[in-house]
């Protein structure tokens, strides 16, 4: 097994890393301290490791880091910060959508992918969009509220512009 130098563009930052081929994107991101990307199963069942790869939401545990060489990667932490949170992050905090928080980063990335495509989703569409992200704490209702609140807020903002 030979290591290779690759480039990971994460949340707008370029990282040059030398990795073996059997390193998953999940492992690579966590090693680069993107620990908002969580490991809950390593086999596609939980969605805690969800990130955007070139604009598409995927399970980073099922992508090899080499396959993401040069691609655009976005994690939840890339959306906002404590000082300036993304509207989804703010809504998740306000709506009670965050309990233990372990599913939250994956959930928010899934919700963002939905709103990018469909700015005004129905409850059914939201449930479908987050159906690959397990949450054991909330029963999903407040998560759905948070997505709806964000959609409304973002549409209002658009209308004002």
């Amino acid at each position, binding site marked *: 097994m030979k290591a290779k130098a690759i480039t990971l563009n994460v949340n707008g930052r370029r990282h040059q890393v030398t990795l073996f081929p059997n390193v998953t994107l999940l492992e690579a991101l966590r090693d680069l301290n993107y620990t908002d990307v969580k490991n809950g199963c390593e086999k596609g069942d939980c969605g805690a490791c*969800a990130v955007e790869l070139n604009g598409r939401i995927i399970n980073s*545990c099922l992508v090899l880091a*080499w396959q993401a060489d040069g691609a655009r990667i976005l994690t939840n932490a890339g959306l906002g910060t404590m000082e300036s949170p993304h509207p989804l992050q703010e809504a998740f905090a306000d709506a009670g959508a965050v309990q233990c928080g372990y599913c939250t980063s994956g959930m928010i990335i*899934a919700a963002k992918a939905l709103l990018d495509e469909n700015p005004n989703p129905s409850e059914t569409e939201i449930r479908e*969009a987050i159906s*690959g992200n397990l949450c054991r704490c909330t029963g999903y209702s407040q998560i759905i509220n948070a997505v709806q609140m964000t959609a409304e807020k973002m549409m209002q903002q658009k209308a004002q512009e």
Partner: protein
Amino acid sequence: MLPEFELLMPRTLPEALEMMDESSKVMPLAGGTNLLVDLRGRLSRPQTLINIGGLDELRGVRVEDGYIVVGSAATIADLKRNALIAKHGQALRQAATVFANPLIRNRATIGGNLAYGSPAADAAPPLLVLGAEVELLSKDTRRTVPLEEFITGVRKTVRHPRELITAIRWPIPPEGSVGVFRKLGLRKADAISVLSIAVMLLHMDTGDCDQLRIALGAVAPTPIRAAAAEDLLDGGPLTPEVIAQAAQLASEATQAIGDIRGSAAYRKRVITALVQRLLTNLAKDTKEKKH
């Protein structure tokens, strides 16, 4: 953690074909949603993976000589939002919408779904009723195999280790054809099929059933066509009696086994019930359409 392997990153299809090898120590890697899971579980021990997921030649859906041709590396999400599939592969589109979950759908490919050879592959029953063929290419051979002959057993296909699936194709169905897909899992999203059914009705203008195809998943070592049921329905009217009989025949065509998801008896019984329901709905819909 994943075991050790070499990973080759071809940039073109010819390059990829060049890398393929006689032995099963070399395996193509498409979306990785089966292969990486199996590697992690040590269920598969290839020495070399060839990353084919990104190859442009294997993407896209197009019309060619009266056929719909889907590149093997088209993802399930690609299928779900493609207009050609919506029109000419209705059952496949429906399968794509209930396939796994949105994250997996962005990676999982149609080629991987078939190449893996699972009896529960959700793309297989729709493709069987569409009469699909699998295009196989190696460095110096090219052939097309009907899907019915492609998968030969649990995790077994006729694909030679040196061959890649490059495309899946099927003749454009006649105008007015209708296809449906139904899957039963143990929860409402992200569940492996306990059983699945695809039905397609071709040409329906006389009130009789010109041709009806039924395919079943997860109830035999491979996805299967229910030939006896199809024969019974061929050319006749879709009366409740015939439908009931056909549903029974479909169930008899299965060789279901029991596993953690359900018993063989349950699978057989629900095949009967659901085939009956799908056919009844089809008969009703087409009648309504005529009026």
